[in-house]
């Protein structure tokens, strides 16, 4: 519906009523006045006609044209009427204003005919002779009981009509004046009504714009007051609800942002609707960059897409593992359909858990069990094989027997070493857990010397020399046997992987709050990709070679654990072909 201003609703009705009333009044007044006038005039004219008739009667020969014409002229002039004498056959005998000879037969004039029948007649019509509206009355002129002629008296109606017209004009003028007053009044009334409405509108507009703190004032119109109060209440409730919703949203946002799991919501086209902070961090994108883009543009990973597709295609909870191989990350993904409040499907939500660490630990455990079994099995198999050979009769020949027993001895020693190392590791782990090792302050140099002497045999075999840099007075709080073992493990390693005759540098220094023991060799070095896993149990850079050299695969693991139980750490720096430096960091006293 087209809306208009209030004044246009009020004004036309007012104007219609006023103008209608005025027109009706003027019409009624004009009619009444005119008919009253006509009757009065008619009466006068009848009187005049009778007087003319009486006057004619006194004439000797009344119907002689000269006589009648003279009388008519005289009386007509005196009274201001037009007086005509018509014979019953219709010829005009006399007329006060015209020459009777020029007038046609008057027999069919309505007033004449009525007068002939009823003794009097009147008519109002347009006179062709005088070219104006006229009122005619006619009475018979009786001479010797016989109608000898008709006396007709007439008067122009212009005067009467003029008077009525003046009256009508006045009434109309008054009507217009009243209409003008009505316009002004309508404007005033509509203004009275609209001003509070305007105020209410402004207030409502402010509400609409979000400013819910303002309140609408009360005013004199009670209907508008009700409206204002309702609007105020609405604003209050709206504000309350918005507060609730905002609070809930903030809580959810905070929850969403703080989650360590990545959350990604996608629409049915796999376009991203929402991501949380964790997802932004994981995929190294900002939310602004990835909203509206396809998941595939952000993370190109077939496993992830498969899960997204599955989540989009089913109502069930789907899950799967995702390996982001270019980043070396393992993720566990859960996906489920995303629905709007109406229950319609609008996409899917994925929750990604970073399981890289778990994955690594799991792999470590698996490897460890496999490695331990393998490492234990090799010497045992060998020992059993040679014992069987001996039992089968090889013991008869002394040279064979001695050789086989020698091998059995070596393998048994290796088994022993392996078990020793495993036990050392196990006890180190236990002690680390209970943080209970005996620590005393000792001279570091003596400990290092003891460590070197432990692997004297290996060094001598390859004619290697250890260069020691350690201040005599440097003291450290440590468990001497453990550190001795760690140092000897490192020197042993350095000896194994270096060519004969090279030098190993063993140094100990105080660096800030730490004491660093370093073992530097000039061996073959280690490739960078092995370094992060080097201290793992049984981790071997070169599987065949290490075993051939007699290692248990636990040496560096022990070094790391020794450092850990002292509250320190171990690390390695290496360059293939140039050599490696292993360091043990111990907290200084």
């Amino acid at each position: 519906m087209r809306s208009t201003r209030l004044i246009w609703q009020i004004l036309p009705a007012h104007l219609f009523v006023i103008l209608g009333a005025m027109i009706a009044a003027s019409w009624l007044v004009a009619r009444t006045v005119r008919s009253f006038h006509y009757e009065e005039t008619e009466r006068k004219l009848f009187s005049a006609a009778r007087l003319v008739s009486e006057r004619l009667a006194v004439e000797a020969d009344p119907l002689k044209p000269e006589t009648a014409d003279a009388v008519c002229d005289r009386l007509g002039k005196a009274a201001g009427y037009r007086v005509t004498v018509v014979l019953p056959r219709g010829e005009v005998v006399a007329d006060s204003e015209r020459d009777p000879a020029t007038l046609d037969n008057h027999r069919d004039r309505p007033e004449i005919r009525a007068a002939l029948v009823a003794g009097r007649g009147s008519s109002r019509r347009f006179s062709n002779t005088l070219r104006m509206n006229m009122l005619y009355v006619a009475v018979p002129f009786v001479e010797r009981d016989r109608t000898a002629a008709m006396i007709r008296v007439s008067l122009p109606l212009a005067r009467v009509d003029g008077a009525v017209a003046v009256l009508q004009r006045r009434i109309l003028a008054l009507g217009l004046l009243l209409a003008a007053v009505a316009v002004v009044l309508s404007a005033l009334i509509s203004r009275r009504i609209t001003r509070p409405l305007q105020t209410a509108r402004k207030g409502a507009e402010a509400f609409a714009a979000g400013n819910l703190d303002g309140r609408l004032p009360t005013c004199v119109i009670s209907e508008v007051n009700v409206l204002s109060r309702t609007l105020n209440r609405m604003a209050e409730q709206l504000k309350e609800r918005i507060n609730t919703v905002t609070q809930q949203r903030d809580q959810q946002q905070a929850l969403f942002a703080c989650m360590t799991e990545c959350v990604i919501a996608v629409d049915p086209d796999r376009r991203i609707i929402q991501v949380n902070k964790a997802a932004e961090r994981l995929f190294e994108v900002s939310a602004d960059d990835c909203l509206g883009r396809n998941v595939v543009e952000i993370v190109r990973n077939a496993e992830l897409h498969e899960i997204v597709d599955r989540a989009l295609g089913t109502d069930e909870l789907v899950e799967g593992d995702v390996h982001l191989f270019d980043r070396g990350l393992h993720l566990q993904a859960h996906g489920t359909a995303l629905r709007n409040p109406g229950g319609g499907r609008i996409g899917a939500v994925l929750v990604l858990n970073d399981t890289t660490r778990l994955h690594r630990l799991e792999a470590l455990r698996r490897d460890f069990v496999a490695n331990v079994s393998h490492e234990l099995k090799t010497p045992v198999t060998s020992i059993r094989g040679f014992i069987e050979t001996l039992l089968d009769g090889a013991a008869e020949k002394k040279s064979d027997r001695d050789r086989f027993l020698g091998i059995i001895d070596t393998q048994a020693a290796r088994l022993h070493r392996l078990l020793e190392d495993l036990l050392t590791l196990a006890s180190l782990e236990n002690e680390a857990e209970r943080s209970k090792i005996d620590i005393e302050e000792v001279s570091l140099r003596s400990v290092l010397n003891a460590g070197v002497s432990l692997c004297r045999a290996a060094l001598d075999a390859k004619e290697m020399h250890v260069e020691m840099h350690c201040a005599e007075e440097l003291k450290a709080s440590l468990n001497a046997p453990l550190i001795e073992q760690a140092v000897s493990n490192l020197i042993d390693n350095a000896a194994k992987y270096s060519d004969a005759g090279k030098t190993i540098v063993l140094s100990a220094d105080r660096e800030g709050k730490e004491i660093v023991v370093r073992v530097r060799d000039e061996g073959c070095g280690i490739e960078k990709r092995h370094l992060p896993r080097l201290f793992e149990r049984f981790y071997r850079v070169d599987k065949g070679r290490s075993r051939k050299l007699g290692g248990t695969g636990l040496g560096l693991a022990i070094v790391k654990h020794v450092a850990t139980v002292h509250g320190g750490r171990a690390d390695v720096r290496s360059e293939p072909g140039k050599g490696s430096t292993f360091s043990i960091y111990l907290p200084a006293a």
Partner: protein
Amino acid sequence: MPRQFDHDLNGLKDRLLTMGALAEQMVHATTTTLVEWDMSLFEPVAEMENKVDQMQKDIDEETVRVISVYTPVASDLRFLLMVTRMTTAIERIGDQAMNIGFYAKTMLKHPPLKPLIDLPRMADMAAKMLGEALDAFTHASPEAAVAVIKKDDRVDDLNDQLFRELITYVMGDPAVMTQVLELVLISRAYERIADHAVSIAKDVVYIVQGKDIRHATGTDDLTEGSTAREGTSRDSDKQP
């Protein structure tokens, strides 16, 4: 152009990237198979290969549909034409991954001839080039694409180096001939994968700049690519 057209173009882009992701996964699986010396890691690849083949058909069909329905021009047309070329390249990468698996099957029956050092490096490089080419396509970045193209030489060098090294093994002990041959073929397959990645990168440059840099020699031709005119026509007789 109607919005439906844009939607269809984006859909094609996403599907192509999904296909690329599968190919990346396949290449990665071949690398781990070799590095871990464990043939079971290769098992999922055959299924992925089927998927890649199916996706190639689907995407090409959709491209033909989009071209015939909308009769696109300029960069949109270039995009659509290149999509079909890229699906071919990606499908061939999948084929090469299958080849590597095929060669590895015989090779992995024996203990390794020597520690794998250069081969994984090559594999990583080829995989990275594929990833970067797809990134360049994602972001419509000719600069990134040119960077991929420039890397190709290094893969080729590694391939040559590996080949020479392996020859010395054969000369030392002819018995290792079969294993060396497998290694040579595998390294050749990775080199081919890198070549396909380069071809994808060149297609990206053509989409964005309308400049055909296939068969361009030297890096000067490439760097100058950034000033190429939009919508340049190219000689169509150079189809490989």
